[in-house]
């Protein structure tokens, strides 16, 4: 989907974001190392677009998502939302900003309080931010939103376990929508769903984006979904963005070897294609002790000596960039 003109500006800019987790050991539990889950991320999310964040498990994409919303505190860097740095706002202002940024998690069962009625779960954000004057008004809005996502508002007094997986995920979406956010992090939000339900969900998300002018950060490992939904794609490897670009560019002409490998590994559904994927060596190294130089070089089929020595910079071009010294122009 093309962003509407005049909306070109960045809604969210991430500058050098770093979220490390200390490793404690020894008698005194001193910090002996750091898990570099998010390690110097630069990322722009444009208003109204869907940016997909792709990577394998453990690459730090969920941590990045949480860091953006300050559900996890970062050590360094800025997250500029509408120009305001989320990382340094005082707690009382943060509350107002939070309303603009929401998140939908992967497992809808874990994301809903099993002992809260659906209505209460949805209305919680509204109560917290004082949206709606009274309960009745809020209930009204809950009903409207539920209707909008294809849920029966009469079921709002039910508990999460009384819904199917797909319905639960819709409830999660409604809950996020209820506070009128501008930006939603979708953390593997459709990955756990069956194909038929996934399709419903993706359609719904697209519809909502159009209707409410939302911006999505779509975190996933499923490249098939990315191809379908994303405007732009950022590929993450070991806490860093290795390639960023428009969806077309990434899928048509990936520039980073890791991106190429990732794409080739997706088993195709096309009965004509039964290709052998590109070989990749070894396993993902530990984020507490990342390799020197380019983080991908120990597994890279194209690596040369220089790769192990210097860490390539991410190109900063408006249409995206790549973090590889060998990347073709």
């Amino acid at each position, binding site marked *: 989907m093309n962003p509407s003109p005049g909306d070109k500006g960045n809604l969210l800019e991430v500058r050098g974001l770093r979220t490390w987790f200390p490793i404690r050991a020894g008698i005194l539990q001193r910090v002996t190392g750091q898990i570099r889950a998010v390690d110097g991320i630069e990322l722009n999310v444009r208003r109204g677009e869907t940016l997909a964040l792709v990577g394998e498990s453990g690459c730090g994409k969920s941590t990045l998502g949480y860091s953006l919303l300050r559900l996890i505190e970062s050590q360094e860097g800025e997250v500029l939302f509408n120009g305001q740095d989320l990382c340094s706002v005082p707690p009382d202002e943060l509350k107002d900003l939070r309303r603009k940024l929401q998140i939908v998690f992967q497992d809808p069962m874990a994301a809903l309080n099993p002992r809260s009625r659906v209505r209460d779960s949805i209305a919680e954000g509204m109560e917290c931010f004082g949206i709606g004057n009274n309960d009745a008004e809020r209930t009204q809005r809950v009903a409207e939103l539920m209707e909008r996502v294809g849920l029966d508002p009469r079921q709002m007094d039910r508990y999460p376990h009384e819904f199917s997986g797909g319905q639960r995920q819709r409830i999660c979406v409604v809950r996020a929508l209820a506070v009128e956010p501008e930006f939603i992090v979708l953390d593997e939000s459709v990955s756990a769903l069956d194909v038929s339900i996934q399709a419903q969900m993706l359609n719904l998300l697209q519809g909502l984006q159009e209707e409410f002018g939302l911006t999505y950060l779509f975190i996933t490992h499923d490249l098939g*979904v990315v191809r*379908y939904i994303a405007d732009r794609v950022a590929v993450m490897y070991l806490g860093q963005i290795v390639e960023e670009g428009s969806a077309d560019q990434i899928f048509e002409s990936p520039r980073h070897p890791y991106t190429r490998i990732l794409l080739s590994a*997706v088993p195709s559904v096309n009965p004509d294609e039964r290709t052998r994927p590109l070989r990749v060596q070894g396993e993902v190294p530990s984020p507490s002790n990342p390799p020197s130089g380019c983080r991908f070089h120990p597994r890279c089929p194209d690596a040369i000596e220089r790769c192990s020595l210097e860490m390539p910079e991410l190109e900063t071009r408006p249409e995206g960039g790549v973090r590889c010294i060998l990347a073709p122009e």
Partner: protein
Amino acid sequence: MTQPLLELKDLETSFPSSAETVSGRASVVEGVTLSIDAGEVLALVGESGCGKSVTALSILRLIPKPGRIERGEILLEGRDLRTLSIPEMRKVRGNQIAMIFQEPMTSLNPVVRVGDQVVEAIRLHEKVSRKAALARTLELFEKVSMPDAKARLRAFPHELSGGLKQRVMIAMALSSHPKLLIADEPTTALDVTVQAQTLELLRDLRQEMDMAVLLITHDLGVVNQLADRVAVMYAGKVVETGTREDVFRQARHPYTKSLLRSMPALAKPQEPLYEIAGSVPVPGEWPAGCRFVTRCEEGDDFCGEEPAPRRRLSHSHACWCHRVEGVQDES
């Protein structure tokens, strides 16, 4: 016609259900009839809860209590596994039919070294010394391309990554040259790159060892990569069987068709995805007739009344649908 390696006839497996039924039980798998020839890969596809895993577990009679097999035959080379005694059944498991599971993280015993777990599998079916078994294990580890195989023999499961654990599982399954490997969602929990490696490994191994594979998955991509034949399941019943080409190119059952159409990978980004309305009904609340009738665009009232018959479309292709024209089987 040669005898198939494994034949399921009218298999029905039930679990206790909270739904209001007469017996308090609901059949999760009903009337499943399938066959696998030696050396063939049959993929059993369906969404979660459609009964594909239960079918697989029923074959090995590993249905956890209080579930039980209600009726049907499970013929392995003509011998009905349901009539075997427990010790006899034990000889089939892991020996003639081996199985690997979805979650390599939890499927290995966390307190036993992986090498020993494979050794145990070998020695359960063959009277060999521990040492010999260990040597065999090393061979197997090399066969499944386990990097640094020798050192890995002494590793504990938690010291291995998911992909390597799945390789251990595969090595364990292959330890006694089974005729049939049941792979229950073998790659679902793995990352794409590791999935690709694992699929490749499976493909190579089955050619090399000439074994049949019953591949259980919900991922059509995986099916496309590995399967010779495909059986699509919906709500406890098989709705369509055929070769890979049959199913992917000429799917006839409305469910199969909509499944393929709702794949985002096959869709064009600008168009809305095809949606199957509603969700899979819960076991025990399945419609009396064709089970897809509640979500089917093509169905009518009649479909809901009577179970759909098997319609043969070609020698390899069959479909259970009232709406599909074809040769109805005599049964």
